[in-house]
């Protein structure tokens, strides 16, 4: 009799756990990304640019890594350091998972930014960060493909011309396709949440 009761209790417990799991699977809200999702992800034409010491950076060599890409220039004192400082927070927070992500800055000012200069600028925030420049044709086709606006402007500053540029961060997935953009002002916490979700989905 006691044994029978025990089986009954076990049965009820199993049913309750089963139902809870079912509800969890059926009704769980899908993760909602902070960034702007591009659906379906947009294939990005392979490109080659230079990093420090004339080393070559080829997009197709990065397959298997998520790429965080932004455009800036080294004379920029405000917006570009803000983005790189955010990258630094993201990198530090991801821990070992940071090895699954490439943090890349491409110049919006090739006339003044040599590959060495951009590399050094990015590396100042974290030695793992990649800074890229290259010839105008290569840069122009990347800007055009990703819809990056770049314009020199004379404002009378002692710094010479300034550069107006798109300040979004572009997220390329492990296959090198454009998956999402983060508008300027996206916090490190929001980027970390989205990256963790992407890494989880790809496991």
């Amino acid at each position, binding site marked *: 009799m006691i044994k029978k009761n025990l089986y009954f209790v076990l049965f009820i417990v199993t049913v309750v756990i089963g139902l809870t799991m079912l509800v969890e699977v059926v009704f769980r809200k899908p993760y909602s990304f902070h960034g702007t999702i591009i659906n379906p992800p947009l294939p990005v034409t392979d490109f080659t640019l230079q990093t420090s010491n004339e080393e070559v950076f080829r997009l197709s060599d990065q397959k298997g890594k998520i790429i965080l890409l932004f455009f800036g220039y080294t004379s920029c004192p405000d917006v570009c*350091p803000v983005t790189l400082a955010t990258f630094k927070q993201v990198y530090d927070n991801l821990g070992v998972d940071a090895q699954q992500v490439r943090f890349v800055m491409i110049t919006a000012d090739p006339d003044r930014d040599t590959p060495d200069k951009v590399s050094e600028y990015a590396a100042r925030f974290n030695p793992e960060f990649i800074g890229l420049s290259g010839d105008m044709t290569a840069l122009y086709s990347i800007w055009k493909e990703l819809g990056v606006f770049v314009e020199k402007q004379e404002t009378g500053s002692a710094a010479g011309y300034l550069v107006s540029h798109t300040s*979004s961060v572009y997220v390329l997935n492990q296959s090198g396709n454009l998956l999402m953009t983060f508008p300027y002002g996206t916090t490190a916490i929001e980027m970390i949440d989205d990256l963790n979700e992407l890494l989880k989905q790809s496991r």
Partner: protein
Amino acid sequence: MKNISVLLILLIASLLLGACGGSSEELTIQSAWARPASVGANGAAYFVIENGAGTDDTLLSVSSEIASATEVHMSMEMDGGVMSMQMQESVPVPAKGTVEFKPGGLHVMFVELTQDLKVGETIILVFNFEHAGAKTIEVPIREP
């Protein structure tokens, strides 16, 4: 009786004047910090100007001895997520108002630093206001 009324009015008036006469009537610069940067590069400093005075003021210029030029700029977001930067001739600081210099907005730009800006060190900035005159402050270098 009339004398007492006059006395009371004088007392209240002096109390009110006393309340207004505190340090809040001045223009102050608070929460200043500058971003670390290397010699030869450009840098930026941020702060909050609080104008406690009853008159509108104007920031005319900022100077330092750590760069080839020290300028006031404003980053602005244009259509389509484009960030643009404009040099500012002057910045109005309204009476009893606050103007915040912050990343992605108003900032002091150091053009071609003549020294490294290292975390933990401080630099000196001199502000020149139309009414409040010159204000000198110490600015710590730190990460955002």
